[in-house]
């Protein structure tokens, strides 16, 4: 903001220097004075240039930092909401907040520096005019703020329309976000045309909303010319009359012209600021909508610690007990709801070695009980980074237990292979084994596996069941599966 002011001062002084050069240098044919004033103008240029560099840097720093800060805040919060996130907000919306909205907020921060400069410009111009011709000064002091206030009535409707536009943009973003995830389905079913048509409809709604907002936004650019123009006319008209009276000199009139033309700046920056402010408010509201989301479950105020080691679980809803250190297989349908109870993704009466889960700290529950299912996501990155959870179980061991060694051997770069988002470059069975290897690598005290081998063939499943049982010996493991191969290795089998 300081740079904004610094930048304005030379600009404000420039017309005065030019007026002086004409009045004191050229008109009386005084070469010395002319060179002096010209030199001063060049000096002003140097000051202007360096303050421009600083102002630009400061403005860019403000917007970049502001934007990055907001993006980070949104991500921090989104990851805190965790499991509840996908059902509460579209993934595309979070991306939109982290991209276009981030720019909107950054844009406002950037304009603030120049807005300050505009205010300073206004003050300098007003002082210059007030000191030489008080009447003209008064016109400026009253006129410019009034001219800026002329923008206010546009704000309400503009914001409404910008919001409507942003809403449609969000819808289009979400649709575009579906393409990669849904492309296989579209391909298989021949839905490309319908999908494209629907996207086109949404895109057209974006267009209409955009035009609608522009209907008002475009007036800003008209007003940007009109309002300061009126002030200029007023100043010049009064000035011309005063010059005619002989109250002021022609040189002074030229200086006034320079000064008043320069009143365009504050009003110009003000309209620009209005535009940015409006977009930033809309963007900030979207960001706040994400920041307001809360995790599904909270920790109690005074959490009880879970028992040490590999504890057992008791689910009151089904009446089943999963003994500590044993491999229990449950042959049931609707296993996802069951698994969610055991991992406290829903509020249910489940006890861990006598401590009700709802009385424990949710972070401790997550640290020690892992519920792994087939809807888990494999993130893009190298296999080693994404599958190795950095716990006591080595990556090779986890891959071996999940019978995924052959998958890794088939990759060009082995464990350093870059896996695409959601492991899409792998086949269904390979992906499932990667998920299992990752879950095993997490080395949880209590591991709940929901249908871990539903996409692999019987031979592979047989190897997996035996190796998982071996790897997890002495640790509490719960497997939901109907497969006889799992029952064969189980310590305990429930068929509710």
């Amino acid at each position, binding site marked *: 903001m300081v740079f904004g002011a610094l930048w304005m001062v030379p600009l404000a002084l420039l017309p005065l220097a030019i007026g002086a050069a004409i009045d004191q240098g050229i008109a009386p044919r005084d070469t010395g004075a002319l060179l002096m004033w010209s030199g001063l103008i060049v000096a002003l240029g140097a000051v202007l240039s360096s303050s421009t560099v600083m102002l630009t840097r400061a403005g860019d720093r403000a917007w970049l930092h502001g934007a990055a800060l907001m993006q980070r805040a949104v991500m921090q919060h989104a990851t805190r909401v965790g499991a509840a996130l996908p059902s509460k907000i579209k993934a595309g919306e979070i991306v939109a907040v982290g991209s276009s909205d981030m720019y909107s907020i950054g844009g406002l921060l950037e304009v603030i520096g120049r807005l300050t400069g505009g205010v300073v410009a206004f003050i300098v111009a007003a002082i210059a005019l007030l000191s030489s011709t008080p009447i003209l000064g008064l016109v400026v002091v009253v006129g410019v703020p009034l001219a800026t206030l002329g923008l206010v009535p546009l704000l309400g409707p503009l914001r409404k329309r910008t919001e409507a536009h942003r809403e449609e943009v969000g819808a289009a973003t979400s649709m575009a976000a579906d393409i990669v995830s849904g492309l296989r389905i579209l391909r298989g079913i021949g839905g490309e045309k319908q999908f494209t048509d629907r996207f086109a409809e949404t895109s057209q709604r974006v267009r209409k909303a955009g035009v609608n907002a522009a209907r008002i936004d*475009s007036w800003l650019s008209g007003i940007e010319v009109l309002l300061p123009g009126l002030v200029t006319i007023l100043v010049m008209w009064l000035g011309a009359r005063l010059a005619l009276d002989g109250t002021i000199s022609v040189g002074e009139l030229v200086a006034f012209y320079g000064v008043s033309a320069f009143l365009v700046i504050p009003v110009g920056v003000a309209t620009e600021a209005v535009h940015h402010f409006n977009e930033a408010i809309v963007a900030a509201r979207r960001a706040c909508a994400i920041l307001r989301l809360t995790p599904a479950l909270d920790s109690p105020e005074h959490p009880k610690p879970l028992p040490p080691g590999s504890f057992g679980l008791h689910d009151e809803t089904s009446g089943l007990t999963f003994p500590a250190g044993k491999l229990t297989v449950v042959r049931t349908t609707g296993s996802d709801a069951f698994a969610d109870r055991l991992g406290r993704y829903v509020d249910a009466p489940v006890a861990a070695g006598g401590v009700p889960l709802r009385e424990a700290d949710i972070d401790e529950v997550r640290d020690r009980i892992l519920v792994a299912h087939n809807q888990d996501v494999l993130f893009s990155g190298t296999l080693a980074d994404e599958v190795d959870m950095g716990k006591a179980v080595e990556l090779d061991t986890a891959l071996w237990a999940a019978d995924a060694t052959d998958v890794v051997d088939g990759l060009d770069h082995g464990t350093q292979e870059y896996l695409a988002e959601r492991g899409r470059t792998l086949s269904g069975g390979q992906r499932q084994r990667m998920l299992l290897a990752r879950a095993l690598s997490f080395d949880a005290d209590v591991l709940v596996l929901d249908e871990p081998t539903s996409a692999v063939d019987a031979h592979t499943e047989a190897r997996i069941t035996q190796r998982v049982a071996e790897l997890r010996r002495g640790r509490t493991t719960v497997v939901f599966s109907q497969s006889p191969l799992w029952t064969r290795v189980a310590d305990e089998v429930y068929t509710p």
Partner: protein
Amino acid sequence: MKTTLPLAGKPAVRAWIWSVAVANRWSFLGMMSLFAAATLVGLIGPQLLGHLVDAVSTGTTTWHIDVIALIFIGVLAVHAVLRRQARFRAAVFGERLLAEAREGMVEHVVQLPLATVESAGTGDLLSRATSDVDKLDEGLRQAAPEIVIAAVTVALTAVAMVITSPIVALGMLVAVPLLVAATRWYRPRVLPKYEEALADWAEVHSSTHETADGGRTIEALRLRRRRLALNDRNVDKAVGVEWYCSRLWAWFLGALDVAYILPIAAILVVGGVAYTQGLAGIGEITAIVLYARALVEPLSEALTWMDELQVGNAALRRILGVQQIKPDPGDESAVPDGTAIAVRGATFAYSPGREVLHGIDLDIVEGERLVIVGPSGAGKSTLGRLLAGVNAPDSGSVTIGGVEVTSLPLAKRRQEIVLVTQEQHVFSGTLRENLTLPRDASDEELWDALRTVDAADWAKSLPAGLDTVVGSGGEAVAPAMVQQIALARLVIADPHTLVLDEATSLLDSSASRNLERSLTAVLAGRTVIAIAHRLTTARDADRIAVMEGGRIVELGSHDELMAAKGSYAGLVASLSG
């Protein structure tokens, strides 16, 4: 390493701009005329003021001054209205072009090879379809007209200066070498950085999307810190590049400021000399100085917008890059004779040198139920994709009724054969929109389809029935139900041949048996190729194909294969034994 979608080359960008300019020439001309008119009217104002100053210095009446002021007010009003109109037309024009760019891109993307899209990832695509389109917006809607206005203003002002006093106007030339040097220094440095920045932001969007998508996994596996660290790294990288661009830009602007002010001093000095020689009057010198000042605004506007245009150009390269890959339009004249499917010597590799299918031969007759079994990684899904014409074989052929499947136009292909995969996805939108992806259908048809797959009760329980919003951000749909939606879609698509690629594999077995029971009705009268690892599905099939290592190693009915005591018999034994 990570792959991204291609960038378009310069010729493609030029060709696109040209075609858009030609297609929209009238609205473009209209918009430009409005801008030009606004600019011209805008030039009258300073003229009037100059006239005012002249009139005052030569002595005039107050009445004359009043008239000039009133005329100026009129001109100002016209200027403001023209400017608003021009801006509005530009917005209309820009929004239309953007919609076209967006839609054209999505239309293209859905036809690209699966592997290309999937390995690029959602973020790359998403940033091209959204934030890059936004950047293009600024380039198109604002930069083009602003640059033209600025050029017109600069040209007119320069002409006015020369007319007023060619000698004094010479002072202006001081700026030229500075402007040229600054631009030559700046341009080549910043261009590659702009492209880098866009790619870096795309990376940010990619990881953001993955994080948002995988909320449950992140919470379960305590990956929050990792994801945030990754996000920080990505954001830092993008911000770093932007910050570097900002430095270049700031220095460039600083140099320009000197280039604006220097000529003013030069003009004053030259003017002073000319005045003493009697070559120029005070009024002329004043006018030239004012003109020189008036040049600053349009010149810096032009340069700023040129910069914006460069960003737009970088964005356009990304947007058009997607369209570089031309999808196969298909052969409209191809009409399959019958519905028999024949695979002859088909081979296929996803990447060169890694063949996954080695010479498959297979005949499937109408109404047959064929089950393909085998260990995971044997190439079952790949064969399914070849059969459905999602991929073309590298060598050999896959035909339906004697016509190469991939030569059939997409719409026609899906009336013949449909592939239901193990991938599960609910599109963000209403249930109705999810079901009617293959074609539009009446409510009655939709409910019939839902009943066929045992999902009608569930659909009725939704808050708004068919119009309930599901998918990301909407009503949560259980995995089993996602499969049922997929199968209901199938009923709507109504093809004569179905390829079910482990369509029920992610469900627990009893549910999948339920589903298969209800499916029997749907499958009746159709040719069905089911890819399965569960042998329960295989027993009732007409024929079973056993795949191992990219080949069909056994083919026959359950009884035949059991009698042969080969791989299949071994698999069955391992399960029941």
